[in-house]
């Protein structure tokens, strides 16, 4: 254990501050930046709409389909925005109102009310679903995936490129210990970067909610959701990390394992049940507290890739993922025992 810790301590600096680490940080911080941007946008909207006249919802709700635009204007008063345009033979008109909570668009065709579209100025429920989508479709599938590729593949392959791996091989350390020490270093770095990124983005999500929504959420699910997202991110690092560490031991070109793994994870939902269990994403999706939305109008290929595998329960996902990680690490230690150093000398 002592040797594992010494190796991890020596390696951790490299894992955090390697030349290739910048884009890892960018990937980790992207969702936080996204939700901070959303926070700024909501803040701006709130300020803008606070200054605009509110039309009572009861008036807008009373306008049936077929109402003329003139009658609507007479009933609801002047809109916030009035847009008119022609497409083919149809004259379109959109009257934009605000009822104090929702933004409402009355859509007219040839002067008759066709549809009423209502969007809350901001919806906490919708935001949590968007967060779930960003977390599962971007953060787990891409950011943590490629981040771990950068961190863990570098642990062995990077040292071979730098011609410094023999420093470790010339220490009185079992290769298994070396693999575990390096893995721990990578895992600590990845967990801090991506776990921190997950918490930061979650905090950014909460930062712009109304006090009522926020209070309710904090009293109910907020802590549990935050912890599950954190756990999913950390376990994602553990799972993908083990795979890319092993890949770095046996393959020269990082593109190949990345593409194979990405394909494997993408088609996981269509694999037989037994093979689904050999996927990191299979377990991670089960840990996410809010199901990710899947737009029914999305292209079939995108739906195929994004549709989740049959979920495992959260409590079977945890040991399942750890078991997959342990299996991959075991294979990595076997590969490390056979690993040779040949920098192209004699």
């Amino acid at each position, binding site marked *: 254990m002592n040797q594992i810790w010494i190796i991890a301590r020596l390696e951790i600096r490299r894992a955090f501050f390697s030349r290739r680490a910048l884009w890892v940080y960018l990937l980790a911080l992207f969702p936080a930046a996204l939700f901070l941007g959303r926070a700024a946008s909501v803040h701006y909207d709130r300020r803008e709409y606070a200054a605009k006249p509110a039309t009572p919802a009861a008036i807008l709700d009373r306008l049936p389909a077929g109402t003329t635009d003139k009658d609507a204007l007479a009933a609801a008063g002047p809109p916030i925005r009035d847009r008119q345009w022609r497409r083919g033979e149809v004259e379109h008109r959109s009257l934009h109102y605000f009822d104090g909570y929702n933004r409402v668009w009355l859509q007219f065709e040839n002067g008759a009310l066709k549809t009423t579209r209502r969007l809350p100025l901001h919806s906490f429920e919708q935001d949590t679903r968007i967060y779930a989508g960003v977390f599962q479709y971007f953060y787990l599938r891409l950011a943590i995936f490629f981040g771990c590729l950068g961190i863990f593949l570098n642990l062995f392959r990077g040292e071979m490129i730098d011609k410094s791996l023999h420093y470790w091989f010339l220490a009185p*350390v079992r290769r298994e210990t070396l693999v575990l020490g390096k893995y721990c270093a990578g895992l600590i770095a990845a967990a801090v970067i991506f776990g921190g990124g997950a918490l930061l983005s979650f905090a950014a999500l909460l930062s712009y909610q109304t006090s009522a929504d926020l209070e309710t959420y904090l009293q109910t699910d907020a802590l549990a959701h935050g912890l599950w997202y954190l756990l999913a991110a950390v376990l994602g690092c553990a799972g993908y990390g083990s795979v890319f560490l092993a890949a770095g031991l046996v393959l020269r070109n990082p593109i190949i394992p990345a593409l194979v793994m990405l394909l494997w994870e993408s088609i996981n939902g269509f694999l037989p049940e037994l093979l689904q269990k050999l996927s990191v994403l299979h377990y991670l999706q089960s840990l996410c507290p809010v199901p990710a939305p899947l737009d029914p109008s999305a292209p079939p290929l995108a739906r195929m890739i994004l549709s989740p595998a049959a979920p495992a329960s959260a409590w079977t996902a945890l040991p399942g993922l750890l078991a997959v990680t342990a299996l991959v690490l075991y294979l990595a230690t076997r590969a490390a025992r056979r690993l040779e150093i040949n920098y192209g000398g*004699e």
Partner: protein
Amino acid sequence: MSDDLIRFDRVSKFYGDVLGVNKVDLRIPPGITSLVGPNGSGKTTLMNLMAGLIHPGSGTVSVRGISPFAPEQLMRILGYATQYDAAPRGLTGFDFVLSGLLLHGFPRPDAVRRATHAIETVALTSAARRKIAAYSKGMRQRIRLAQAIAHDPAVLVLDEPLNGLDPVVRAETIALFRDYAARGRHVILSSHVLQEVDVFSDQVILIANGMVVAEGAIRSVREEIHEHPSQYLLRCAEPARAAALLFTHAGILEARIDPGGAGLLVITRQREAFALAVQRLAVDGLAIDGLEPLDENVDALYEYLIGGGK
């Protein structure tokens, strides 16, 4: 198992289709052993096999009874200074040596003491707190040597250890090797500077094209080379008289008076007969200042066994 030899038993190693070493059988006793051969001959391959950095395709290697497949045991008795920088990025020279000792499991105070001593030994104390990235080639060479010796190993393997060292440090390093050898340890090194190898090696291993061409003490290797007659310089005041007398006594192939006035240059295939004849010259009253073999050195062995291109 008490075994103080480094053993290679029918060891072959190929890098894909490229030969590293082929069917090498070696028994290396303690002392200073130099691996000599042209670039690409297999010197580094042999050293890497000893250290377990590469594994034999066939055959077995053991270092004082320990298999290179057990690095956790082997590296406690072996220190290897490779040609390449090994330091993790950003370390100072001191931290580099210290971290290696901590990996050995030395308690920190002991590790600090050993690191300090090793760095002193290679005369790098003043630069110990500087980052290795800022070191010159010679300093890097020395810090690698410091790391290799810091845990006081029984087997020291050094790839071109004298490259880039200034004359003073070079002499101190050679003294260090001698000290190690005198304590019954192995010092295995490769060097291109054959004159230096001559001076400090107890034995040499000549390698060419992945094969061991000759091994042993320089003199005994020379004695096995029958196709090349021996060359001597007989230091005496009367070289012409000595030449005349020697031709009557011994199977001399050629005798020339040294143009520099050092004495008589003699080429003979019959070393023992020649030695007896020289003794008789002395008995007959010829003043002899000394007899110096001119081709009992690594340079000559290299030339005879491997040829040019060193």
